[in-house]
């Protein structure tokens, strides 16, 4: 008991000091122009955020894709994918909870869910593709498409969901998206010596034909597509894993 009280006091004190420090240092920020100015002076594509994300700091975006992949992998492992030992999961997931409960919603929601999901998907694709001209890009579009999937799943229940993103399909899509990103980087390296070089054209043929005045689009739309597919697959997989017991039962060798 005494130890807990001492620990509480220590935690409170360190929280107070640290919190005050954090608050004060955020409060006294003064933004220096510095290298920020550089990113505003050259136009690569009309959307400057995309230009920073995929051209100047493309490697960060790659790292961020990979963190999503790792996270999907680890989430799968929490539910028993490829573990060394399944005793704990077998103890937690007993025989009788092997089934998913699919209730679904009322007909009103079911009628609306499909057209909404279809339109959301199409909108997501447009957002992915227009990432270099309008606000948007791979993440936002991918999140929209997976939102469409989640919407259909919530309305109909997982078993009768009309949007059939199977586990295998999502896995392939995710690997394809990330590999597209990595391999486009390698192609840039072969052509110019720099990883993730923004290739404008090959033998005079522009890589992504687009209207005049739009700058050096290069590989940015393809990177957007890769990221979009990967985010769509990653978020959908995570949702599926979080709502379903069936995958766990399958992973731990039951049914």
């Amino acid at each position: 008991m005494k130890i807990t009280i001492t620990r509480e006091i220590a935690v409170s004190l360190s929280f107070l000091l640290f919190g005050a420090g954090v608050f004060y240092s955020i409060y006294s920020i003064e933004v220096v122009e510095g290298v920020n100015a550089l990113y505003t002076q050259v136009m690569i594509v009309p959307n400057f955020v995309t230009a920073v994300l995929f051209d100047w700091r493309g490697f960060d975006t790659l790292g961020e894709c990979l963190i999503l992949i790792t996270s999907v992998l680890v989430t799968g492992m929490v539910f028993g994918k490829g573990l060394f030992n399944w005793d704990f999961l077998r103890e937690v997931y007993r025989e009788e909870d092997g089934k998913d409960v699919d209730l679904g919603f009322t007909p009103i929601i079911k009628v609306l869910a499909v057209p909404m999901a279809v339109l959301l998907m199409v909108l997501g694709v447009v957002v992915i593709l227009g990432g270099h001209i309008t606000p948007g890009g791979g993440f936002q579009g991918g999140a929209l498409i997976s939102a469409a999937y989640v919407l259909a799943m919530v309305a109909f229940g997982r078993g009768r969901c009309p949007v059939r993103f199977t586990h295998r399909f999502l896995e392939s899509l995710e690997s394809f998206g990330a590999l597209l990103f990595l391999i486009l980087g390698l192609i840039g390296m072969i052509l110019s010596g720099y990883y993730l070089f923004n290739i404008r054209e090959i033998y005079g043929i522009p890589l992504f034909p687009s209207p005049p005045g739009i700058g050096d689009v290069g590989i940015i739309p393809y990177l957007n597509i890769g990221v979009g597919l990967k985010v769509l697959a990653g978020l959908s997989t995570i949702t599926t894993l979080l709502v379903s017991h069936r995958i766990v039962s399958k992973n731990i060798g039951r049914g």
Partner: protein
Amino acid sequence: MNLLPLIVVIPLLMAIVFSYIYRSKYIRLLTLLMALVLLVLPLLGLYGPYFFGGHGVVYIEGMPFVSGILYTLNPLKETLIFTLMLIGVLVLIISTREERLSGTFTALVLMGLASVSAVILTEDLFNLYVFYEIAAITQAGLVILAGREEAYRSAFRYLLVGTMAGSILLLGVGLLLSATGSLNIVDMGRYLALKPLTPTVYGALLMLIVGLAYGGGLPPFHTLKVDLYSRTKPFVAAILQTYSKFILIALMLVILKLFGGLPIFNTTRGVLIALSVFAMVFGTVMALLQDDYRRLLAYHTVSQGGYVALGLALGTPLGIVAGIFHGINHALYKSALFIGAHIVEKIKSPYMREVGGLLLAMPTVTFLILCAKLASIGIPPFNGFQSKLLLAEAVMSADMPELVILMLIVSIGTFLYMMKAFYLIFLKPCSEEQLREYREVRISKYHIFSLGLLVLLCIVLGLYPDMVLDRLLPLGEEIAIE
């Protein structure tokens, strides 16, 4: 052509492939092949800077600024990456002897290798943050692989604190970005040296230290790391401790490069030295009390992390070199010890009092583990001696003789618990029946090969420390503070 990014990209690429085919029949074969590829990777890069995406240095008002992401390779980083890849290779080779090996393990190890080498190579703070987070999530995943409840729990705790520490680290990066306008470490350091310091910079320093303590396993986050190492399979702990040691070295170098020339560095140094001394003492004291061999080794890792941090925190050329050299040595002999612990666990049990008399069952392994233990204590022909001697010299020349006495006491403590463990596991007499039981368990050649190779490296580095030191010294002088 400079192939430097391939050091990071090839493991990432293969990690994705492995996680896609994780149930394949050929996973063992592919893992072995991958291990061979990893050995080639550190040789690919050329020394010097490497700009991603072809963006180079840009001049704004006569000041050079790096616009994109910059990697640099120098002999120091090359040595670190070589050690990292070597231990990764050995762990992958051992893992092929595990039953129920699946592609997820290989994928996670590769992801970790790639992210830690990116943390070592990068000169860009935000890039460092991204890969630091990948390393954190990978380590949690590697612990979850063990599949027991304690493993799940320690991974959960690690991730909860890790998200907090990661956010705080990013806040520090953001504050530095606002104060300097750049994300490149060298540019930032130059800018900070020119301009007067604001509270923002102090806050950023505090937050970077929080990130360092979490990533490198210094107090107050050391118990998380101990849980990680002791809850997973010991040969996985070998790679986990290598990751955190190298992240510790990389982040310490970042702090030195950023704040080394500033007037606040004296205070910072005090804080860092206090943290590392606490890690040393606490690790030793706790290790003396342990009954579980894995936990003993885990606490030993924490105390040796304190040595590494102490050397780097001194900021003198000799201190930096000694710290990094000790980090490399520690990664080698501690991996050997963890692999030894894996063999012990496989034969009987990780609890020291339940084992005994292993010497008669497997004399070669006993001899190799004894060598690794001697190296970890710091007995002359081994590498641990060389780096501890160098550390003591550095501490002496920085006018802190009381720390040398402390290091000696810690070393004596290390000797005590290492020898206690050695006696209980290998020398304590045991019954005939138990011996027969031991002899039934077959130890794979891969395990003995890995152990032997690591011990051989320990001896070679102990006899010819100049092999590594010559590569480190010029850089130590470059980074060091006057």
